[in-house]
């Protein structure tokens, strides 16, 4: 057992950190620090900077643009990116559909889509959830009927993140309604410009519109857009959801947010001439989260260390808690970030970018309450924390 990183790993960390410092456009960094919304152009711009450097998809196989880094290097890269803080690459391409196409896609699909994912020439979104199929995803109803060399798709997807910018959507669709629900699902790639696709925004309680409903009305999809075999889509979906196990803890994001929290606590008046950072009760609240985060970081390092010996088939109890604990910690931090500004959490100030209006209260206060409300999503998306508990209970505890 040794917590120290090797000199090579430390040099690697310095390289990565140096690159992020130099290459991350200051205006994007500022939006990240202040917790403001990123536009499509911000995310595309950053992804292309990474792609030019050859770091767009470090975890992919080298032949498709991966870097061949060790699990430790991947971890360091991700942590440094989160702490920069740089935008996370759009996950729907690089972490979701990309790995599925690499594992199960046709040669033609690989050659066409993978390079375009690396530089976000296609903006991907994810068509899994439906109005009647949330946690019980396999009950999904959107249908795809084969007619000649096309599928005809009808139905509705929902909670589709950033579909308003999307060129492509990967969908779970029902191709066989007669069999057990998991066995009649296929994985289909659909062009968002196809006739019959309609996107309607859903405004969430924080006032943002990052999720959407997507409707499919007699949409024609070439059979060539089927991934792998018909009716095997559920297996591919499980592969996708299990693919990225350590990134979901978002330890680097939480570290960066705690630094921000401490900075703001040092600025914010606490009454009686003191600052919030002088309030021992508030400090202990921050510290309690820091300790949980340190424990999670160590748990994540245990998973990274185990992965150096190849990924085991048995689920690692340490990896299974990353999602639950990681989301709880992020939400706890978002709560403290709202609390730290006290009454100046109140003014509702939708994005001030491009506006000449002066901010109400301190200029950092505006996004804090909306982010608190927005981040409730973290324990819901990607399989709610209750579903995660079901999975652990079954797969690890054998209950």
């Amino acid at each position, binding site marked *: 057992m040794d917590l120290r990183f090797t000199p090579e790993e430390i040099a690697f960390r310095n390289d990565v950190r140096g690159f992020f410092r130099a290459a991350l456009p200051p205006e994007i960094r500022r939006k990240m620090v202040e917790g403001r919304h990123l536009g499509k152009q911000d995310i595309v711009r950053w992804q292309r900077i990474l792609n030019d450097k050859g770091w767009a998809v470090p975890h992919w196989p080298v032949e498709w643009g991966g870097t061949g880094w060790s699990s430790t290097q991947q971890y360091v890269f991700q942590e440094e990116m989160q702490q920069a803080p740089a935008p996370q690459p759009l996950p729907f391409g690089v972490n979701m559909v990309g790995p599925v196409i690499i594992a199960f896609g046709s040669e033609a699909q690989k050659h066409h889509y993978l390079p375009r994912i690396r530089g976000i020439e296609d903006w991907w979104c994810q068509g899994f959830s439906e109005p009647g199929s949330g946690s019980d995803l396999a009950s999904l109803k959107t249908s795809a009927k084969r007619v000649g060399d096309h599928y005809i798709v009808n139905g509705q997807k929902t909670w589709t993140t950033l579909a308003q910018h999307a060129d492509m959507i990967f969908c779970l669709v029902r191709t066989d309604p007669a069999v057990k629900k998991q066995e009649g699902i296929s994985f289909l790639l659909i062009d968002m410009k196809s006739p019959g696709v309609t996107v309607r925004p859903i405004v969430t309680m924080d006032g943002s519109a990052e999720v959407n409903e997507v409707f499919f009305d007699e949409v024609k999809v070439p059979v060539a857009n089927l991934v792998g075999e018909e009716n095997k889509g559920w297996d591919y979906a499980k592969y996708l959801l299990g693919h990225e196990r350590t990134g979901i803890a978002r330890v680097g994001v939480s570290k960066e947010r705690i630094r921000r929290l401490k900075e703001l606590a040092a600025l914010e008046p606490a009454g009686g001439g003191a600052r919030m950072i002088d309030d021992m009760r508030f*400090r202990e609240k921050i510290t309690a989260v820091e300790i949980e985060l340190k424990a999670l970081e160590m748990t994540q390092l*245990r998973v990274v260390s185990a992965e150096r010996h190849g990924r085991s088939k048995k689920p690692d109890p340490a990896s299974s808690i990353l999602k*639950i604990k990681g989301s709880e910690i992020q939400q706890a931090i978002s709560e403290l970030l709202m609390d730290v500004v006290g009454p100046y959490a109140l003014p509702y100030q939708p994005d001030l970018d491009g506006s000449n209006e002066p901010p109400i209260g301190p200029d950092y206060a505006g996004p804090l309450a909306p982010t608190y409300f927005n981040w409730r999503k973290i324990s819901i998306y990607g399989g709610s924390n209750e579903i995660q*508990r079901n999975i652990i*209970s079954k797969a690890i505890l054998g*209950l």
Partner: protein
Amino acid sequence: MDFDLTEEQRLLQESVGKLIADEYDFEKRKAYAKEPAGYSAERWTHYAELGLLGLPFSERLGGSGGTPVETMIVMEAFGRGLVLEPYLATVILAGGLLRLAGSPAQQQQLIPEIAAGKLRLAFAYAERQSRYDLTDIAMTARAAGGSYVLSGQKGVVLHGDSADRLIVSARTAGGQRDAEGVSLFLVDPGAEGVSIQGYPTVDGLRAAEIGFRDVKLGPDALIGTKDQALPAISRAIDGAIAAVAAEAVGAMTAMHELTVEYLKTRKQFGVAIGSFQALQHRAVDMLVALEQARSMAYLATMMAESEDNAERRRMISAAKVQVGRSARFVGQQAIQLHGGIGMTAEYKAGHYFKRVSMIDTLFGDADHHLAIVARGGGLIDPI
């Protein structure tokens, strides 16, 4: 960066695991507790034969030069067995002080005896008013010629009633709460003026309240440098925190296994109660708390002998917070999920619960260490 055990460490883990499985089942433990010292003399000798009592000491002193990782392995297994013997008091605490502060002559004289199982020690440092503050020492050691005269009271001295020798902290200079002026002394518990009131602790181990009334000590009783003992005490306590963190993880692991097994076998309403989602989720939350504690016990182990005092202190404190909080949660839920049977003295779960609860009170509880980390500015520094 890795969490792998070496081949030798894996062998140690296997052999200590087997030792506990073979020699420390619940019935045997009950019998050991009835012996005069409150633990098994035979097991103590056996630990010596297996080399466990010399584990952290250098080979030149009859030990095997183990790192904190070896100590962690042993303590985790001891946690699983709810071991009663004074390993923490003798090997970790007093042994730690001798390693850190003892003169070569004292080390040469005492450590081989510890390793051989012939010398049991206890560390008397806490006082009624000090709670968890290591600097708050009212006990005095007055210099008289080249000798010292010890006066004062020490409380909750772990295994203080069965120790062959005591290591006692006392003030040789300065005011009651000064960091400077603290010294350590080796004291014969049979010396005139020493009064020992031994008692069982809630977790089935033993401790003592010890009074010192004008106890005369020779010049060679002083351990380490006069007035400068506090850094060694602090480091020895940090090592002990890492050790009890591992012990708590062992106990929590066993408690969690016991609970999951019970959920699978106990039937109500015609089905195993583990089929109920409310109980499944509780068992998962116990696992989360346990794994978070395990991660911090690893961190404490790897920091236990760090020369960077500030960094070591805050990481050890952070680990103690996590272990204390996890232990409370895992213990309470283990009893709750067992229902009535969990309440009984006959059943093992309650004994694990009591031990991990008492571990939280040792060397500073979760609140105490949370305040330390918070006052120090937390854990995450600016980049």
